[in-house]
């Protein structure tokens, strides 16, 4: 598996993206401007380039001409939300377009979706005898496919990306269902019960009092 190149001049954002991707199990490289990025692309190979549009020196729209011949997929990162900029970015050959401010979970989903379409960088998540391929969207236990509903899959993905970490209920709910939880909702608990049953993980998914749930395993 090759690393993902992050081209972004804001150190805070660059570190944030690197941290998010590393936590999801991806290796990363970083470039602070267009010229440095061009040098790195010439010398190394990457599975994906996350490219900021507004860069000092050579900007993202110019840099994409360097990257496309290598066949590496590109996702633009930009503060410009205008339809014209979006269309321009996609027409230039970018695979996707992420508008700032973005949430790390959204970034991760877009990265995985682009990698899946490009058939690259499959990062199989593994906890115990359960394996999840977020690019192929397949879950197996002991090599046997397990049939999961979409929300069950999304919930399992959140847990498997953070093994050994206690995740807050509200955050889990928001990431899986996309909105803030209603009060006293049992939806999350019901889905946890389904996962425990389907994967035979009654003990592996632990309830943490006052926080939420934790998947037993070694933290990354």
């Amino acid at each position, binding site marked *: 598996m090759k690393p993902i190149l992050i081209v972004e*001049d*804001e*150190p*805070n*954002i660059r*570190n*944030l*993206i690197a*941290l*998010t991707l590393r*936590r999801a199990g991806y290796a990363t490289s970083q470039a*602070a*401007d267009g010229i440095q990025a061009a040098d790195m692309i010439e010398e190394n190979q990457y599975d994906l380039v996350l490219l900021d549009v*507004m860069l*000092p020196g050579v900007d993202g729209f110019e840099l994409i001409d360097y990257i496309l011949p290598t066949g590496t997929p590109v996702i633009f990162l930009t*503060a*410009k*939300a205008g339809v014209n900029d979006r269309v321009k970015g996609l027409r230039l050959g970018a695979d996707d377009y992420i508008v*700032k*401010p*973005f*949430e*790390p*979970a959204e970034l991760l989903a877009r990265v995985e979706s682009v990698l899946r379409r490009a058939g690259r960088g499959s990062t199989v998540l593994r906890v115990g005898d359960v394996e999840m391929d977020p690019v192929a969207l397949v879950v197996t236990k002991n090599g046997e496919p397990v049939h999961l509903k979409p929300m069950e899959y999304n919930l399992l993905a959140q847990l498997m990306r*953070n093994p050994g*970490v*206690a*995740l*807050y209920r*509200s*955050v889990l709910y928001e990431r899986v269902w996309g909105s803030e939880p209603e009060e006293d909702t049992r939806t999350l608990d019901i889905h946890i019960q389904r996962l425990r049953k389907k994967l035979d993980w009654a003990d592996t998914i632990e309830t943490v009092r006052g*926080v939420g749930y934790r998947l037993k395993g070694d933290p990354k």
Partner: protein
Amino acid sequence: MKLSVKFTLSMILMITLVLSVGGVIFMAGDFNQNYDNMVELSYQQHNAQLSQLQLFLKDMEADTPAQFHAALYQYGNSLDQYGGGSLAIFMDGALAYLNLENQPDDSALAELARVVQEEQVSALNLEQAGEGVSLYICSNLQWGESAAQLITAHDFTSVYTRRDNQVSWFARIQLAALAVTALAAGVVSGALTAPLKKLTATATAIAMGDYSARTQVESQDEIGSLSQSFDTMAQAVENQIQELNLSVTQRDDFIAAFTHEIKTPMTGIIGYADILRESPPDPKTLHTASEAIYHDARRLEQLSQKLLLLLGLNREEELELRPVSLAKVFRGAREALGNPSQVEWPKGTELRVWGDEILLVDLVQNLVQNGIRSLEEEGRVEVTAELQEDLVLIQITDNGCGIPEDQLERITEPFYMVDKSRARRMNGSGVGLALCARIAQLHGTQLSYQSQVGEGTQCSFTLEVAHEEDQ
């Protein structure tokens, strides 16, 4: 109806009216004079005839009515013989002799004679008979006890023929004159309205969005000056549109830059906060994330503060300026900057200037801050204030990295940064100089820059001195 048609029709109407009235007056006058002449001539002939008849009667010594009768017949016969005169004689209401050309009704002649006999006057009567027109003059001839009426006929046809000829000749002249008038009026009105057509076409073109269209009519008349006014107006409109387009572009640039400046720290804040709230963080992540959130939030806060000030100042038309002590301004800026060691301030200046103290502190603070940001390790920033007649020249000079010449023009645009990564590292937002330029403008001065890449930058502006007596 088109203007040229209206003009042509009114010209034709006017010419027709003038020619008709003139012609009628002329022809009526001519006819009346001819008629009067003819009447006078006819009377003379009539009287001559009458005298001749009287002489004849005298010669014949016709004293009795019978002799008178006989004499009259004889006179008639003698006239027939010599072929003289065209006349009729009535006696006692009966026709005594008749030899008239174009003879009218006998009864009409008898009626004429009867009136003349009864009223004892001479009379004339105009009769139309056959092709011609004749005047009949009748007078009473009293001879002793007897009386007779002499009627002579006079051909008036020529008078009427002449009038009819004049009328038809005049009608032809008038027709020709009207044709010429119509042609001339058409040509003239066409020439007059051609520029109007051009005006219309140009106005339509402008309405359709071609703001560069002009009439370019250069005649000296009213239409010419209208066209020139129109062209001037079109030029003004075009300039205005260009300015609007420019300001729209500038606003779009501003919004794009503003969005970027806002969204970048937002992304950091949201992203790191999301990591923190996901699960109880380890100390290292906690530190990195809270550090990033703090700095990004500070950056947003500074940006919003400066933007608010800039927007407020942009709305301000004119500042109320007061005498301000420069020493106080420099002290304020120095304290706001945290007394940086690289800056050399002017010593013991007692100058007072017209200004707003808070804004002047902001101005000096921002300019000095920019100087500090440009410095390498060994750099210095020097601030000087120098009295020049009624102005104080303030200069902020650094020996930092300098600004490339092609970028000097743009540095006061909001969010413009010469070296973005350096400005970021120094916590610059790109709004400071736009703010400085506006503050300078409100003080009736402007910032002027001199810079050399690698050598440093000097920024200067002037303020008006506040004299003792002003205070």
